[in-house]
């Protein structure tokens, strides 16, 4: 029985040569097996596998690169936040300084104003006092002069009338004094 597709089903009969052992290793089959491996190994190792190796490396690099980028972005965001916080703090400090300065300025201004006001008030008082003194001096001198005139007038009237009558004398003095008062009142109003 000869078949190249299904092998030989039965052990060969007596007329054919004996079947070789299945554990025999014919050199030609061994060579074919070696060739098969070295062809596959050679082509895969030189052509196909380096490509996929490179691609896998590229992929892992891309993933790692993405992660790194994300980390960078986060660091950048953190840095900006820090900067912002620092700027905010310095702005607050500045504002506080300005406020303190303003308070100091205000106190100084108020003090200055107060001093000025006091000085002005003192000046006004001094002027009033001086004026008062001058007026008094004027009034005194005028009064002194008029008292003389009045005394002369009174003496004339006293001389013209009889001094015996107490009642008459008394009324004369009274009318004189009333006269005097009226005159003083009129001066005062006039001044």
């Amino acid at each position, binding site marked *: 029985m000869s078949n190249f597709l299904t092998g030989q089903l039965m052990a060969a009969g007596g007329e054919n040569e004996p079947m070789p052992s299945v554990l025999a290793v014919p050199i030609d089959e*061994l060579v074919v097996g070696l060739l098969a*491996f070295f062809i596959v190994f050679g082509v895969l190792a030189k052509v*196909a596998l380096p*490509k996929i190796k490179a*691609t896998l490396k590229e992929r892992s690099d891309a993933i790692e690169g993405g992660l790194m980028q994300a980390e960078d972005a986060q660091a950048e965001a953190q840095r900006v936040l820090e900067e912002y916080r620092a700027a905010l703090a310095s702005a607050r400090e500045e504002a506080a300084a300005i406020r303190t300065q303003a308070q100091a300025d205000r106190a100084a201004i108020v003090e200055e104003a107060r001093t000025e006001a006091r000085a002005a008030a003192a000046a006004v008082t001094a002027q009033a006092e001086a004026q008062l003194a001058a007026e008094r001096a004027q009034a005194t001198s005028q009064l002194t002069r008029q008292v003389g005139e009045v005394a002369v007038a009174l003496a004339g009237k006293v001389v013209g009338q009889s001094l015996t009558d107490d009642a008459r004398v008394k009324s004369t003095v009274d009318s004189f004094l009333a006269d005097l008062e009226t005159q003083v009142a009129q001066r005062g109003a006039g001044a």
Partner: protein
Amino acid sequence: MSLVASGSLECKFENAANPCGFPAPGSGIFFFDDLVSWEIYGTTVGINKVTILIAFAVVIVLGFFLYAFRKPQIVPKGAQNVGETGYLFIRDGIARDVIGKEGDKFVPFLFSFFFLVWIFNFLGILPFAQFPITSVFAIPVAFALIVYFTWVPLGIYRQGFGGFFKGMLFPPGVPKPMYVLLAPIEFISNIIVRPFTHAVRLFANMFAGHLLIATFSIAAYYLLTFTVIGIIGSAASFTMAVALTAFEILIQALQAYIFTLLTAVYISGALHAEH
């Protein structure tokens, strides 16, 4: 026989020694006649089914991976996805797992073994091929020899001749007198038996699987007569053949994995002294 083929007995197989007997498949199903052959230096070199299937498997493996990895994209799709899964399985599942940091260097080596052996095995159930090439003993022997002549020189190169054999024959942590017993055992098991078992493990699994499928397939045909017992017997045999074919799918992948894993273990042992 009369019970099985009661009624009209027809002889489906002709055999001079035992007419109409069950033609149990023997070692003969692993031998094929040459289609063409040449005489080279007194040796007959021919092309038969095994040679053609080997060439076919090589073309399939190379064709697929050259196509899948022709222009690899960062974002994979289609064949690249499938090829990448295979690549990562070898790189992460075997090379890095077993060998460690240096494993990446051996990925193409392990990758070639795994997929070549797998496809060689797979041809056992591929319709029309239906012959696992690894059940031809010379093929696993060739592969085991390649592995053997890789890890032994590698071990000597990396650990030095003395260091390599000292690490192998005198494993630390053993009472001194035991070395008298242990060293010869280690030598035989590692240097002599290891390549043999490496090859036989793959060969015997595929050989037995093919024989079983062939037996039940022939039985399904042989028992098929139009009697109740004939139909039941044939159907049972056919079911068995189908179930075994499914089981073979598992065994084929598993044996390819085991062969590759052992290759990685041997290389790892050559790279680092055992402890």
